[in-house]
């Protein structure tokens, strides 16, 4: 479904990604792990159109998308839930969700999706009229994911959903991720918490300072000594 090939991405004069190649097949949950600054977020930003690669291609459903703006990327069914949540603090929960579906024209389907999202995260229904900025960290993360789901994406890019959250909340969120995976959605998950990520993923890639150093099935990575030491021990 998604195919990155030899991607080079620069931040100003600094090369953030070097020759990244990875792919995600439909229905898979693929995870991108690695230490801070490895380039995981950069990869997602390149896919969602916030960054333009200097070299290489990104192909989605057979169509090159690396030169498209975020507007067109969302149109094609890719949704990026960014690191740090980035919910609209001055807008209500309701408005946040509405924005998630801003491109959609099918009102009835949208309403059904809202109900579904509320079934995944019941607390959001309670806080519907509250401003996003008044929500707790965990609730904001739920809102961010819910908002991404409102665009009815076929491919979900998730960046660090567990960041800064208490373990209980993390479990809740990863339960939802599991549900999403079981319902057939394709997910590309970036995670600091490699253990959690590899528990849930089908396959994984390991990034280090902008390069891909390992790729394998999740099981194999879990058993891998190097991964064990660098990313799971900590």
């Amino acid at each position, binding site marked *: 479904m998604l195919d990155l090939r030899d991607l080079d991405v620069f931040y100003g004069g600094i090369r953030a990604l070097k020759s990244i190649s990875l792919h995600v097949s439909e229905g898979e949950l693929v995870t991108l792990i690695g230490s801070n600054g490895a380039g995981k977020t950069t990869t997602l930003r390149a896919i*969602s*159109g*916030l960054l333009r690669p200097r070299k290489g291609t990104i192909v989605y459903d057979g169509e090159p998308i690396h030169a498209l*703006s*975020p*507007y067109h*990327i*969302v*149109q094609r069914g890719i*949704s*990026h839930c*960014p690191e740090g949540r*980035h*919910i*609209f*603090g*001055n*807008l209500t929960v309701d*408005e946040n969700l*509405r*924005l*998630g579906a*801003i*491109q959609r024209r099918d009102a009835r389907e949208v309403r059904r999706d809202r109900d579904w999202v509320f079934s995944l995260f019941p607390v959001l229904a309670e806080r519907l009229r509250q401003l996003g900025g008044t929500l707790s960290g965990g609730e904001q993360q739920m809102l961010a994911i819910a*908002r991404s789901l409102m*665009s009815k994406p076929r491919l979900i890019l998730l960046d660090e959903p567990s960041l800064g959250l208490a373990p209980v909340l993390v479990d809740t969120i990863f339960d939802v991720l599991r549900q999403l995976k079981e319902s057939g959605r394709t997910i590309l998950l970036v995670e600091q918490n490699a253990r959690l990520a590899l528990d849930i993923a089908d396959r994984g890639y390991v990034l280090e300072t902008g390069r891909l150093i390992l790729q394998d099935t999740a099981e194999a990575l879990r058993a891998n000594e190097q991964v064990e030491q660098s990313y799971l021990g900590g």
Partner: protein
Amino acid sequence: MSFLEYMLQQTINALSIGSLYALMAIGLAMVFGILRLINFAHGDMMMVASYSALALLLAGLPYWVVVPIVVLITAFAGILMERFAYRPIRGAPDVAMLLTSFAVTIILENSVVMMIGARSRPFPVPEFLRAVYHYGNVTVASVNVVAIIATAILLVLLTLFVTRTDIGISMRAAADDMTAAQLMGIPINRVIAAAFAIGSGLAAVAGLLWTAKVGKVDPYMGFFPVLKAFVAAVIGGFGTIPGAVLGGFVLGSLEISLQGLLPGQWSSYRDALVFGILIVVLLVRPNGILGARAREEI
């Protein structure tokens, strides 16, 4: 004049001038909220509106037809301005964009000077706006009443727009968090153009009201009002619409109070004081009364 009459008089004056500042400040705030651009050329939208109105009135069209046409013309001018002056430099450092807005001001003002002339011209103010009513010792100019009512109506419409329509909510989202807004797939160019259009349209109304009060137009008429509008927006909370509105009325009240309080020969220093207050506000509470989310800047 009794104290009550005095307060009533001053309140009406403050509300009416506050309305004008609020209308102008909203346009500045909307654009700044989304683009971080302080658009000083916004004042020239007042000027464009007034000159367009003058041309149409002299051509014989009745005032009530002229007003909506002028608002549309000015909104369109705002869209053009964004497209050709600001979109090419989007992403530039804030100061570069501010300076560009100065350049746009100069281009607009001097175009009028070049084509029409620098002298001020009388504006045929319609009868209903020239009327003045007396209630005891209180003098009420109808233009002031119209200003207050028009602003109230426009504010209601604007609020509906930014809370009920997709574009309106997208605008608020973009001002809140541009990155996230982009990730939602908001049509960013359309949203920005809409912000300019609405802001300019409101400036057109402010311009027509101003012209009705002053009775004449000149190419530089928008410069000082936009500076004042900027002060209003900063005081209220720069970057948000409620902040702009609040700031407009606060500034209006401030000006009227200063005018009353300052002893005779010092009253003309009122404007200097207003700008001094701006500096103080920037120092003490740069995010204004309503305190929009602080941004880290060095």
